[in-house]
Every structure is written in structure tokens, then in C-alpha cells.
């Protein structure tokens, strides 16, 4: 059990480094380590981030958006370890800046060849990146309704997006 754990952990660690570098840059680095390597089945897991040029820091020393992006990289590493047929993200893009939202959506596009992704969002750039949109609204007081938005006519897309989130 221990050797299988170590093997999976090492795999997850490599995936984590790979995804982290595609969400940050090729010059950024990170690591995933067991705090008690001699007690692998009980050990907690430490996340180290080494953004380019800066000193290594634990994940807690990063900015709000950098933390979220690092956590997303770890979630995708676990996904690569055992790909789920579908993944659901509920407003994880909220603390990200525009450039990081592009990267986030790009990596979802890449993995969407193998799995479906359901993305709840308020962000216009994310809305522009998905394949289809369901608009949720309060039909009458307290009762939710859903309506699929058709973006086949691209000219109306941005106008549609403007009115969609309010």
C-alpha cells in the first residue's frame, strides 16, 4: 500500500509541476512534498511555489489569485491521476486577472476533449470561451428557471453576454 501510495504521489507531483508551469510560465516552478516522508500513509502534504526570480514560498505566502491558480493546478493534477468524466467549477475564476482567466479556460479547452466541463461563472471572458451557455434566472419570486443561450449568430454574442449576467 505504501509503495503504491508513493508511486501515485510521485505521478501527481509531476502532473502538478506540468500544469503549474502551463498556468504560470515555463520559468515558474513548484513542488509537492510529504511533510513526513518516512510516514507516507499519515503524512500531510506541503505545496511549495517558486515563481520565477522569487524565493521559494509556501502556498500561503502567494497573492490571492496566485493561490487560486496554484490550487487549480493541483486539482488538475489529481484529475490527470484519475480523470473524471465530468468536472464542475463553481466561480473558481473570481480572483483571477484577465491573463490568468485566459490560461484557465485554455487548459479546460484542452482537457475537454476527454471530459465534459460545467463552468458556473460571472466572468465575461469565461463566458466567451465556453461552447454553450445556460442562463439561470428567477422566473417569479423565488422560483428558478433556465434558458439555453444560442450563440450561433456571433454578432449578437457580446450583446447577449452583456445582458446575461444581470
Amino acid at each position: 500500500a505504501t509503495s503504491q501510495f508513493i508511486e501515485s504521489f510521485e505521478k501527481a507531483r509531476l502532473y502538478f509541476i506540468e500544469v503549474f508551469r502551463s498556468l504560470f510560465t515555463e520559468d515558474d516552478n513548484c513542488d509537492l512534498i510529504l511533510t513526513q516522508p518516512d510516514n507516507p500513509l499519515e503524512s500531510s502534504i506541503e505545496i511549495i511555489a517558486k515563481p520565477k526570480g522569487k524565493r521559494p514560498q509556501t502556498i500561503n505566502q502567494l497573492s490571492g489569485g496566485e493561490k487560486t491558480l496554484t490550487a487549480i493546478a493541483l486539482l488538475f493534477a489529481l484529475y490527470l491521476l484519475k480523470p473524471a468524466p465530468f468536472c464542475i467549477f463553481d466561480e473558481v475564476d473570481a480572483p483571477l486577472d484577465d491573463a490568468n482567466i485566459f490560461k484557465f479556460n485554455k487548459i479546460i479547452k484542452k482537457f475537454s476533449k476527454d471530459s465534459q466541463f460545467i463552468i458556473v461563472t460571472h466572468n465575461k471572458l469565461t463566458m466567451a470561451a465556453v461552447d454553450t451557455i445556460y442562463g439561470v434566472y428567477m422566473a417569479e419570486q423565488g422560483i428558478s428557471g433556465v434558458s439555453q443561450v444560442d450563440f450561433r449568430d456571433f454578432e449578437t454574442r457580446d450583446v447577449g453576454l452583456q445582458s446575461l449576467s444581470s
Partner: protein
Amino acid sequence: MRLIRLDIKGFKSFATETVIHFDEDVIGIVGPNGSGKSNIVDAIRWVLGEQKSKELRLDQMSNVIFNGTNKRKSGGLAQVSLTFENTKNFLPTEYNTITISRILYRSGESEYQLNGVNCRLKDITSLFLDTGIGSNSYAIIALGMVEDILNDKDNSRRKMFEQAA
């Protein structure tokens, strides 16, 4: 495995029958604050067998039933059905299309169904065992899971890792 559709009726703010089709690879869900987006995520968790009311943002499981407004009385039951294609024999069953349903009555009685046939919760969860899905799998990456990774409360990173390993 590929999702086909989600049917929600009487679940939280979805008092009336609602259908969502999953024809695409990346599906966006948008709308104003409080419109019901996270309730859709809760519905998917619930039909997959989530038993912890806290994970569904409820004080108790019965609160999952539409609790009424001043114009419409509260519902008598909550029902969610999730239909998907069993592509590449992802699930250990001969069916090509699978519909799992969960119903909770105001009386407290529960029903679970697999392709229309009553079954136990156990039959549904064992179907998903080891597939990376299941109501508390990391496949449901709500904002809360990002926080769990960051604060690592109760060794949550390790637990997530063990589910995936």
C-alpha cells in the same frame, strides 16, 4: 461516460420542472446572484448520493425540498434525475444509457431509481465506485475545494489525494 441531461423538479429554488441538456464539451452556467446556479451544482451532487446536508449548504436534508414563497406553497417532494451515456463501458453495467434518480418526500421517505427501477442508494454509489465521481469526489470542483486545498484543514489535501490515487 458523457452527460446527456439533468432533470430537476421541486429541488431547492427549482419548484417547476427544469431540464438542462449537456450536448457540448464545455457548458457555461451564468445568471444573477441568487438565481439558482449553485443549486444546479447541488442537484448533481445530491442525485449522485451526497448524504451530508452541510455539503449541500443545508441545515437538514429536508430543506432540499422547495420551501415555498408567499405566492406558491412549498413542494411535497424534490426529484432529480441525471441521464448519461455509458460510453466505453465506463460503468460496470450492460446499459448504454443510464438514468439515476433520487426523490425525497416531505414525509422523509426517499426513493432511488436506476433506469426507472427502484433500487437502494448503495446500488447507485457502488456503480460509481472507483470512477472519480461520487458526491464528494474531486470531480466536483466547487470554490470550496480550492479553499480546502489552501487551508488544508483536517488534512484535506491528503484526503483529496487519497480519493484520486
